[in-house]
């Protein structure tokens, strides 16, 4: 495919946020989406880590795209990502120790997060550095939005707090199940259903 038929950097950025939202539209990288959204703080840290790795991997892959061979490209992507994840992981262990303890194995699991490999494949291995960086920023913004949406619902209902501050009245009966694993599945399923209600409503209005 020629470069001119691919989306421009601006389009890449906008697409990543809502129209091609990695979590709700492409259903990619669901492991951290469900695992680290018990509190808003850990969701934000995770999104930041993913953004750094995605940006680094996209830029590097875009720079070396001329030398990539088809049968080896996935290995090259994964090794690039693993390098960046090691960097982020060690940095976080040095400066944000409690948070890195809380995220536990999910930080190294960014290596096998499908979003990053998918973006390397779809965008960075075909387009220049500018488009790749814009794409990485847009996708990570979309990822952050989705994670924050799920995490705020779970933390608000499960603990009555947001980012550790008490939001709900003190008499709020904490729905502990929202903090536990089942709550992640329920929240994600219901939020997706809500999105498709909105979409159905819009289509209906367009037809009428």
């Amino acid at each position, binding site marked *: 495919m020629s470069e001119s038929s691919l989306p421009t950097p601006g389009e890449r950025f906008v697409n990543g946020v809502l129209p091609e939202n990695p979590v709700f539209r492409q*259903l990619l990288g*669901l*492991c951290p989406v*469900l*695992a680290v959204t018990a509190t808003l703080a850990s969701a934000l840290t995770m999104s930041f880590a993913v953004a750094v790795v995605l940006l680094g991997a996209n830029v590097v892959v875009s720079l070396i795209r001329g030398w990539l061979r088809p049968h080896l490209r*996935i*290995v090259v992507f*994964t*090794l690039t990502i*693993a*390098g960046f*994840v*090691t960097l982020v*992981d*060690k940095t976080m262990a040095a400066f944000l120790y409690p948070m890195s303890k809380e995220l536990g*194995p999910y930080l*190294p*699991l960014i*290596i*096998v*997060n*499908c979003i990053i*490999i998918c973006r390397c494949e779809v965008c960075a291995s075909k387009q220049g550095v500018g488009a790749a960086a814009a794409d990485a920023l847009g996708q990570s913004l979309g990822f952050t939005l989705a994670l924050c949406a799920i995490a705020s619902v779970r933390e608000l209902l499960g603990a009555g707090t947001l980012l550790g501050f008490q939001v709900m009245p003190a008499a709020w009966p904490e729905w502990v*199940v929202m903090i*536990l*694993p*089942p*709550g*992640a*599945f*329920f929240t*994600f*399923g*219901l939020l*997706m*259903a*809500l999105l*498709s*209600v909105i979409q*159905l409503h819009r289509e209906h209005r367009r037809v009428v």
Partner: protein
Amino acid sequence: MDTLGEILMIAFGAALIHNFVLHYFVGICPFIGVSRRVDLAFSMGCAVTFVVCVASVLSWTLTTWVLQPGAPIPSFIAGRDTDLTILTYLSYIVVIAASVQFVELYIRRYHPPLYKSFGVYLPLITTNCAILFACLEISKHVGGTATDAWGLHHALALALGGGIGFTLALVLMSGIRQELDLCDIPRPFVGIPVVMVVGGILALAFLGFTGSDQGLVDAFAKGGTP
């Protein structure tokens, strides 16, 4: 507690109490993607179990002999104590990719129809979080900061238990999804949302296993003393 008890505890914990899919959320992609038919889900579970076992054995060996602080092989070469833990993630990825390649070759050679029906999901096992997760869990118990050093048999128990738990979750889910095909689902829930809600109910059911490992410990303690 004796060795057999420890192994049983680790395997039981990995399969049911801390189920890979329903407690740790690793391997969600095949949980959604390959859970339409029971037979496919079962073969996928078996393939993942096999890869997890191979990758765990390899990564345990690698960690013990090469990567952990003061490991024998690099220390012998360098002539002093070395610490190669920084290479952990990179080397695990290579190990996993190699084991997946191996399984892929095997299935293509001996079970061609199965190879066709897996399609893109077979190479995708490489990027299945469950496998890297098992390797990382094992590396936590080898070397450096570990309080209880794990042997190869412990690593294999975790891999086997985790793989069986993964297969169990996948088969349960695909059975439910086959029934769901006949149901009248509210339109916004069609597709992934209903799968997620059902997954939540399954996770809720698996929460019931919490604490049952203590019962197992007690049973072993009773059996051990006359």
